[in-house]
């Protein structure tokens, strides 16, 4: 008796799921911004990737922060300096791997691919048949799924059905066979966004949908639009979603808020890269390669700076180097940084003066403030150097 009741309960639950699936067919509020042509060639371009990676930055404490996974345990080991150095390098490599960006591709259209039509087979059964090839060792993308309709047509299954069958026979960890309530119900996703759980939404989105699906485009665009309004860009910095976000803004000509945030946080190189990216996407005839090359020579790459940060935990040899290091850590900038800032500020001001900038006043103010702070820092830097008797190079 008990068992029967349980089965009934389960059936009731299934009914609920069915209802949910019905809900999911009515999509959540569509985003207003869409990629009108294929962004993939521009996104996977080596130069763009380099710009996006540099903008993402690499903060190891952010990448390897505690997550809600079963095992967050750490291991303590004794190591020689050489072993430690190797470990540092492997850690940075691992971090770079974890920051790999999901691709930005266009929405894949469903096409009917009919294999055979056999009118003599009409009404051979009352439902259609779905055949999945479960041959060992195929990738999900190359698995064949075919459908025999009741009127005798044999055709390749739609993308939706193919995905469902793949998930049924070869389930991916964390992906649901039905639309998660979070993405199906408008109020739930709106709640997530107002609570600024952008990274969580994006991570879940990436697990649940492929980058070529319309739902992926829709929801990610919504997240980015919401981010652009709430201006909490720092929440996505040093995660794998920052690159696609910057690309999205550059593509849709709304980089100004992100740019303002970057200037305010004194990430001037990133600001220059963002402007360069938008010039590159919209084919604006401005020479940005030269500025970028100059800045690249002055600034270390994200991986290098992460490595130096790791190494700074170790004991340094004493001496002249020590004082300079101290001045550097007190002010937070070196001579190189000051020259790089000058170059970047020039480029940014050029952008603000052009017709591409929309929030000119705000950006100008930010640049002005930054300039004043920089001036003070430079004076302090020179004064300290003089006091310590270090020759200006």
């Amino acid at each position, binding site marked *: 008796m008990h068992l029967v009741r349980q089965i009934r309960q389960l059936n009731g639950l299934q009914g609920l799921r*069915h209802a949910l*699936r019905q809900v999911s067919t009515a999509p959540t509020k569509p985003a207003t911004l869409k990629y009108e042509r294929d962004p993939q060639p521009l996104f996977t371009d080596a130069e763009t990737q380099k710009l996006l990676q540099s903008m993402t930055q690499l903060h190891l404490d952010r990448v390897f922060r505690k997550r809600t996974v079963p095992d967050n345990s750490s291991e303590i080991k004794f190591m020689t300096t050489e072993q430690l150095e190797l470990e540092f390098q492997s850690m940075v490599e691992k971090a770079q791997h974890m920051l790999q960006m999901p691709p930005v591709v266009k929405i894949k259209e469903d096409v009917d691919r009919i*294999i*055979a039509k*056999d009118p*003599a*087979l*009409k*009404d*051979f*059964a009352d*439902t*259609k*048949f*779905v*055949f*999945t*090839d*479960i*041959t*060992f060792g195929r990738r999900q993308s190359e698995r*064949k799924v*075919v*459908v*025999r309709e009741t009127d*005798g047509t*044999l055709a390749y299954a739609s993308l939706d*059905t193919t995905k*469902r*069958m793949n998930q*049924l*026979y070869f389930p991916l960890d964390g992906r649901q066979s039905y639309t998660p309530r979070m993405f199906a119900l408008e109020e739930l996703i709106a709640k997530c966004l107002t609570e600024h759980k952008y990274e969580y939404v994006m991570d879940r989105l990436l697990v649940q949908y492929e980058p070529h699906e319309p739902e992926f485009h829709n929801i990610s665009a919504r997240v980015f639009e919401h981010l652009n309004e709430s201006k909490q860009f720092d929440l996505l910095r040093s995660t794998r979603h920052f690159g696609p976000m910057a690309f999205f803004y550059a593509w849709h000509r709304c980089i100004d808020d992100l740019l303002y945030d970057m200037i305010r946080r004194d990430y001037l190189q990133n600001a220059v890269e963002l402007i360069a990216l938008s010039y590159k996407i919209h084919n604006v005839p401005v020479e940005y390669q030269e500025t970028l090359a100059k800045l690249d020579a002055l600034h270390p790459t994200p991986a290098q700076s992460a490595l130096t940060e790791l190494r700074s935990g170790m004991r340094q040899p004493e001496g002249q180097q020590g004082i300079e290091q101290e001045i550097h850590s007190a002010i937070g900038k070196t001579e190189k940084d000051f020259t790089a800032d000058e170059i970047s500020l020039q480029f940014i001001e050029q952008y603000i003066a052009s017709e591409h900038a929309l929030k000119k006043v705000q950006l100008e103010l930010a640049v002005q403030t930054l300039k004043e702070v920089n001036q003070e820092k430079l004076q302090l830097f020179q004064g300290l150097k003089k006091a310590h008797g270090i020759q200006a190079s």
Partner: protein
Amino acid sequence: MSLSPASGIGRFYAKSAKIIRFVRLGCTNRPFYHIVVMERRKNQHQPVIEQVGSYDPLPNDHNERLVALNTERIRFWLGKGAHLSTPAAELLGIAGLLPIHPRTYMTAWRNRRTAAESEAKAETTA
């Protein structure tokens, strides 16, 4: 009956007749079939040589019947000269792996005839 791995645990003679057939699993009023390769002379619930697919004859929520076929292994066993039971041959025919089985055409034709007859009957009574 506990499940054996898809690679099978059935022992077989090299030259015995093999057959690709259904094994009825599931329970009362809820059929579910494994498509397997086994020695022809054996009973369906004896250990199989290899499982090459599954077939769920009851339609799901989307009103479709699901069939999984390991086409690579099926082609291998057919090449080895394995026989086919009629339901299995019908299913492979519908899947487009083999020519359509004559019995599928027969079923289709009979279904159409029954539908036409019932329609005609409904018209005369109306």
